[in-house]
């Protein structure tokens, strides 16, 4: 029995590549979900998706100039992500276009540009790598970079946490307190870009969003508290990334989609059986008696 368990859950990670992949995805699972929670709460769930397209041309350019070098590609992705976010923001400010419209336009342009650049430079195998990642090919440099970025995200998020929360709720109050809400918002978007650049190597530019959003949307069905949302989403991400790796090892599936699909299963399960807002919660007819929370 124990041996079977060992063979299933522990033994795969004896391989160095699986080991590195595990550490990388666990690091991402700690940093990405909290960002996703804030995106969901602000009604910006699709921004992450759009951002993932925005980093593609930079990644492709890095790939063109420096070959398959992770630091160059990450740097390029980061720069192009931030550039596109700024451009979209300023175009919508200057033209009075709604921000989602200008963002959508820019992200489509960058996606097309990125795909074009990658195919000009290399084979379709490279394109698949960039778009969908290859978590099993994470080397120590990549691992270091991912761990570094993840730590940075968590630290910066901790620093801007209170401002971010207040900005979500009541931007005018924050402004009255002398904090520019726009600055907090930009830093937050910067963190999203940063997270996507860390994730693209392992999960690919398109899949990296999955580890950010799916755990966050799943958590929404289990908690109505911010702390709860963040903790549950991190937990979901940790479980689905290690589980997805195991699945991909045992069933020889591509690792990125396996991880995200597992998170997707968690989402669907929660949508049906979760404590709040789920299908079963809607059918539930129990209620706490009057005055039950008087002595909280």
């Amino acid at each position: 029995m124990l041996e079977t368990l060992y063979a299933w859950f522990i033994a795969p990670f004896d391989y160095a590549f699986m080991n590195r992949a595990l550490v990388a995805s666990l690091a991402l699972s700690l940093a990405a979900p909290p960002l996703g929670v804030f995106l969901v709460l602000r009604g910006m769930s699709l921004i992450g998706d759009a951002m993932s397209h925005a980093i593609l041309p930079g990644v492709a350019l890095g790939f063109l100039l420096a070959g398959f070098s992770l630091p160059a590609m990450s740097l390029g992705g980061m720069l192009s992500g931030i550039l596109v976010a700024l451009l979209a923001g300023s175009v919508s400010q200057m033209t009075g276009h709604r921000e989602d419209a200008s963002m959508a336009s820019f992200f489509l342009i960058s996606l097309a540009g990125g795909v074009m650049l990658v195919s000009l430079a290399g084979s379709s195998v490279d394109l698949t790598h960039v778009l969908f990642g290859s978590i099993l090919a994470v080397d120590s440099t990549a691992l270091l970079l991912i761990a570094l970025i993840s730590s940075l995200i968590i630290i910066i998020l901790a620093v801007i946490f209170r401002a971010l929360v207040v900005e979500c709720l009541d931007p005018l109050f924050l402004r009255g307190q002398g904090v520019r809400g726009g600055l907090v918002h930009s830093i937050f978007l910067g963190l999203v870009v940063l997270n996507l650049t860390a994730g693209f190597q392992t999960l690919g530019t398109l899949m990296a969003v999955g580890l950010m959003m799916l755990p966050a949307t799943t958590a929404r069905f289990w908690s109505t508290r911010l702390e709860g949302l963040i903790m549950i989403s991190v937990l979901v991400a940790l479980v689905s990334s290690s589980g997805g790796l195991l699945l991909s090892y045992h069933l020889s599936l591509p690792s990125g989609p396996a991880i995200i699909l597992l998170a997707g299963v968690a989402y669907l399960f929660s949508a049906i059986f979760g404590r709040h807002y789920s299908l079963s919660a809607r059918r539930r007819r129990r209620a706490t008696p009057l005055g039950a929370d008087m002595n909280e």
Partner: protein
Amino acid sequence: MDCSKHHGGTSLHGRGLSIPATLLLCYSLSVRPSLFRSSSHVPPSPPRRAVPLFADVLIGGASADICTDSPDTSVAGGLLVCGVVALMSRLQLKDLQLARGGRTVLEHIDGTFQDAAITALIGANGAGKSTLIQAIMGTLSPVSGSVECQVPAVRRAWLPQQLALDLSFPMSVEELIMTGTWPSHGAFKGYCGAHYRRGREIMTRLGISHLAHRPLGELSGGQRQRALIGRTLMQEAELLLLDEPFANVDTDTVDVLMEVLRDMARQGATILIVLHDMVHLSKLADDVLILAEGHGRWATPDALLDRYTIGQLSRPPRLPLSFPGTN
């Protein structure tokens, strides 16, 4: 702000009064007891202004017109006390012109809001009340003229109309009230026990301590209004702008909020409140600014009440939506 200071129950205006110093300080010390020590006593019926303004004298005397054309008459008035009140006022409007989308909403708005008093802002829908409030908060810059506000931005509080805030964010009542510590704590400093105790005091006072851990999204209109007032108490707001705070709120809540606002005014806060109800106005306001047809006129609540209730007691008193005497 250190915690020990809070613990002892501080004066509402510990800091931030940077204007002509000593006079003001003496004044504030003499009339402002501690906000939180006075929480147990029931305030008497809404006190009238201690210092009569020249405008009062004018209206109470010869003139039957309830409006004074310019509040500056109160400054020019011979009464020394009036001069003092006007000088130390922390919020003044000077020939203000405000526009929205290129269309002038208000112009030639002049006036001095009394400190330590509640000024009611009345007028029909679309008369520019919310626009004026935005200009005072500094979110709308005037076309011409100026808003002169001595209150530091961190001590200004604004309660927008109901539903203007997205309260679906997962935050509890207590957490909302604790964000009122921003002026002293900023984005990083942790809250200490004394602050939590003070948050508790505020919630008890507002009658929402049993809701402390309830998410904001689950509150009723009256409860969220109490919670938002709680934040301004925590913030020790010196300038409070309330946009129809009593709309869709039950009478109990109105009573509690009125009492709290009265107390805040007594501590020295300058309060500006948009009202649509003559009963609320008669209970609460020390001064009235009527907005209509793009202009503003000042009046006293007594004069308004006299004019609009004499001989019509059977009819509920209504607020004037245009300048009295012009139609």
